[in-house]
C-alpha cells in the first residue's frame, strides 16, 4: 500500500530525515513515536507532499508519488489530520463536512447547489456528523467546538473525503481525557473499515491500544520497527528518551 524508501530531507542546513524507510500494507495500523525533533511530523509532511525529500521515494499502491503535489496525493487517498487542528473554524460543522464531500464529488457535479448531488452531499454530511455526535451542532461555527469535538470533526471529515491512508499527527493533543476515549473509538472505527492508519503519539499506551507495529524515530532515522510489546522492552527506547 505505502512504501517509503530511504527518505532524506533537509530544512536549511539541518538534516531532518536521514534515510527513513518502512512499508505499510492496506489495513495496517502503525504507531510512530520518538522524542521532540526526531522528524515525526516532518515525515508526515513528506508523505502528504507539503515538503519534498532530496533523496528517497514514496510510493502508494505501487505508484511513485514522491513529487506528486499534496492535493493529488489526497485524491489518491492520503488523508491528513493535523497536530494543530486542520478544521475550518469560521465554517459551520456542516460546511466542514460538505467541503470534503464536494471535493470528492468534483466541481462539475456540485456546481449547482440545487443539484441532486449537492442535496445528497448535505444528507451524507449530516450522517457523518451523527457518527461523531455532532448532528446537534451542524450550524455551529467549528471554531466554537471543544478540542475533542474539533478532532472528531477533522477525523470524520477525512473519512468523508474518502481517505485510505490516515496520517494522524497527535490526534489526542489538546483533547480532554473524556473526549480522548471518543477519539480513540473513532480511530478504532476507521481501522475496522480497513483503512491504513499511521499515528504519531507521545503516549505509548495509546499507541499500543491501536497499533500492531511501532516505529521509533530518532534524529531522522527509524531506530526500531517492532511490535509495541517488544518496543516497550527495548532499552534503546529508554536511551533515546532518558539518555544512557
Amino acid at each position, binding site marked *: 500500500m505505502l512504501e517509503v524508501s530511504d527518505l532524506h530531507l533537509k530544512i536549511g542546513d539541518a538534516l531532518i530525515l536521514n534515510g527513513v524507510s518502512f512499508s505499510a500494507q492496506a489495513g495496517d495500523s502503525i504507531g510512530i513515536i520518538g522524542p521532540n525533533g526526531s522528524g515525526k511530523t516532518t515525515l508526515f509532511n513528506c508523505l502528504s507532499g507539503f*515538503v519534498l525529500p532530496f533523496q528517497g521515494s514514496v510510493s502508494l499502491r505501487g505508484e511513485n508519488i514522491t513529487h506528486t*503535489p*499534496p492535493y493529488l496525493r489526497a485524491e489518491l487517498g492520503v488523508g491528513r489530520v493535523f497536530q494543530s487542528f486542520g478544521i475550518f473554524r469560521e*465554517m459551520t460543522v456542516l460546511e466542514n463536512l460538505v*467541503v470534503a464531500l*464536494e*471535493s470528492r464529488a468534483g466541481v462539475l457535479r456540485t456546481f449547482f*447547489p440545487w443539484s441532486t448531488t449537492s442535496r445528497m452531499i448535505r444528507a451524507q454530511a449530516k450522517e457523518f456528523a451523527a457518527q461523531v455526535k455532532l448532528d446537534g451542532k451542524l450550524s455551529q461555527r467549528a471554531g466554537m467546538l471543544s478540542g475533542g469535538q474539533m478532532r472528531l470533526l477533522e477525523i470524520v471529515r477525512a473519512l468523508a*473525503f474518502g481517505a485510505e491512508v490516515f496520517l494522524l499527527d497527535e490526534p489526542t493533543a489538546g483533547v480532554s481525557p473524556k473526549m480522548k476515549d471518543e477519539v480513540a473509538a473513532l480511530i478504532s472505527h476507521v481501522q475496522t473499515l480497513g483503512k491504513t492508519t499511521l499515528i504519531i503519539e507521545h503516549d505509548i499506551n495509546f499507541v499500543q491500544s491501536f497499533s500492531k507495529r511501532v516505529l521509533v524515530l530518532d534524529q531522522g532515522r527509524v531506530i526500531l520497527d517492532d511490535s509495541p510489546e517488544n518496543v516497550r522492552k527495548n532499552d534503546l527506547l529508554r536511551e533515546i528518551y532518558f539518555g544512557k
Partner: protein
Amino acid sequence: MEYIIHLAILVGIYLILAQSFNLTIGLGRMFNLAHVASYALGAYVTALASTELEMGFGRCLISSALVSGLFAILLGGIALRLAGDYFAIGTLAFASIVSALLINWKSVTKGVLGIPGIPRPEIGGVALYDNLQFGYVVGVLVIVSLTVLYFVFSSPFGRVLRGQAEDQLAMMALGRDVRLINTLGFFIASAFAGVAGALFAYYINYIDPSSFSFSEMVFLVTIVVVGSPGSFWGCVVATFFLVLLPEPLRFVDLPSSILGPMRQLLHSIVLLSVVWFNRAKLFPAQREV
C-alpha cells in the same frame, strides 16, 4: 434629478468593483493591491476599442472583462507563488507596472493627457446619451454582476476560497489545488473589475491615469473592511455608505481645496475606526505545518 442619477450610476459601478474585490480580499483573504489596475485596464480597453476600433458596447464589455481577467492570470501566476506580505507587495508591483504603462506608453494610452471623447454606447441603434437611459443599462449590469458574484460566493468554489483563506494546508489535504482555485478567483474578480472599468469609461467619456491612482485602491479596501471582509451584503451596504458619505460636503460652503482632502479624510477616519475595533478579526494569522 440629474444629480441623483449620477450618484446611482457611481454607486452601481462601485458595487461591481468593490464586490469583485471582496471576492479576493474578503473571501479569499488575498491582499491583492492590483485590483484597481484591473479596473484601469478594463476602462482603457473600452476607451481604445470604442474610439479607435469603433467596437460596439457588448464587444467592448467582453474585451474589457477578458483583458482584465487575463491580466489576473498573469498576476496570479507570479504573485500567488509569494506568501503573506510578499504577495501584497508583488501585486503592488504589478499595479505600479500598469500605472507606469498608462502614463508612459503615450502612443497607445496618450499618457497623462488621457483618452477623451469616449462615445456613449449604442444599444439597438439608440445611443445612450441620456444619463437615465445609461443608468438603466448600468442597473441591469449591476444586477447581473451581483447575482453572478453572489452565486460564486455561496457556491462550492466560494467555500473552497473561504476555506483556503483559513488553512491552505487543510484544503490541499482535501484534494483541492489551492493555487488553481486562487487564480480562478483572481480571474473572476478581475474580469468584473474590467466590466466596472468599461462602464466608468463610457459614463465619464474621458479617462486618464489619475482616475486609477493608489487612493482609489485605498477606497476599495475601506469599502471591504467597513462591510466586513467576505460579507456579501456588508460590502453592498458599505459601498452605498462610503460612496454617498462625502456627498453632503458638496453643499457646505467651503473652498474646493479643502473639500477634496476632506472626502479622503472622512474615508480614512472610517477605515481607521473599523480597523481599530476589528483588528483581531480582520487578518488572523495562518497556521503553519
